[in-house]
């Protein structure tokens, strides 16, 4: 598909998601609270979205991933939260 066809197919959906992200950040700004590693990772990933080089999706996922290589000593939770706490 050419760029025009892909825009016809996905533009409105991507536009809606973009506005959702902006509103999400506004909502966080209106709220009180401590700095949070998830928001920091999210903003770093947004920078990768702006970077014109491909592959953006892969780089965004890397920003939101644990960059270490060694197994952790023990699993103390089953859950994942979508960003690396850096501990």
């Amino acid at each position, binding site marked *: *598909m050419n760029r025009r066809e892909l825009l016809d*197919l*996905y533009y409105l959906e991507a536009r809606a998601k973009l506005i959702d992200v902006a509103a999400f950040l506004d909502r966080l700004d209106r709220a009180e609270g401590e700095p949070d590693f998830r928001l920091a990772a999210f903003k770093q990933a947004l920078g990768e979205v702006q970077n014109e080089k491909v*592959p953006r*999706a*892969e780089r965004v*996922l*890397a920003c*939101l*991933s*644990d*960059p*270490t*290589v060694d*197994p*952790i*000593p*023990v*699993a103390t*939770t*089953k859950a*994942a*939260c*979508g*960003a*690396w706490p850096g501990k």
Partner: protein
Amino acid sequence: MRYIEPHAHMVSRVTNDYQDMVLAGCAAVCEPAFWAGFDRSSADGFYDYFCQLTEHEPRRAAKFGLPHFCWLCINPKESEDVKLASDVISIIPKFLEKQNVLGIGEIGLNKNSRNEIKVLEMHVDLAARHDQLILVHTPHLEDKLKGTRLILDVLRADSRIKPGRCLIDHVEEHTVKMVLDGGFWGGMTLYPETKCTAARAVDMIELYSAERLWMNSACDWGVSVPLAIPLAALELRRRGHSAEAIDRLIYQNPKRFLSQSPKFKLIEATI
């Protein structure tokens, strides 16, 4: 349209889902053993679950003319307890004789801990000793990249394991290349929020050779979509893929991988 659902947790779904899947063209469903949403307290709990997967659930599917297959293991979320895991692994061999068991899965990692890796190695050894196919769950979200690397290391370290007989599931843009480059099969999971959308799955299909890729819904007790594969087929059509290419991806590819088990047989009938 015909398709194979290679990863669905039907024990958590209502019977109407079977009906909807068959109406949408589902020709077979495969169910990996997984976490129930709570920890089972003993190996006996897994014994009952394996009976459910090998006896009860196939009967439920058969009411709709749908062949049901399964994979057995103790899942990575319950692998921190190595003693429990080893007790569970010891009861698996007798279930491997059951007619609908395709292999060992979904094994893998969850939080990438040392014990999880130990239990993964035990499962890989079990699969090698019994010449079973392997279905691997890769971790969620921030743990996926590291976990996928660790899993591939474990599989490569065992010389008895052939990559072409291992499916690495839940790949995304940052893991799909290393999986395919290693000669493994990759599964793209169409699951809301935490995994992959249909549009992104189609991107990966267009970027990489789709020879060793399949799609699945991984529908379970969470908010998930049992018809995610037929919906992704619509996405493929919107993106200009031919009917033949779609059939290759959602029917022939899973059939090719799963047919490496002599137990995988389809009822060749059209709806």
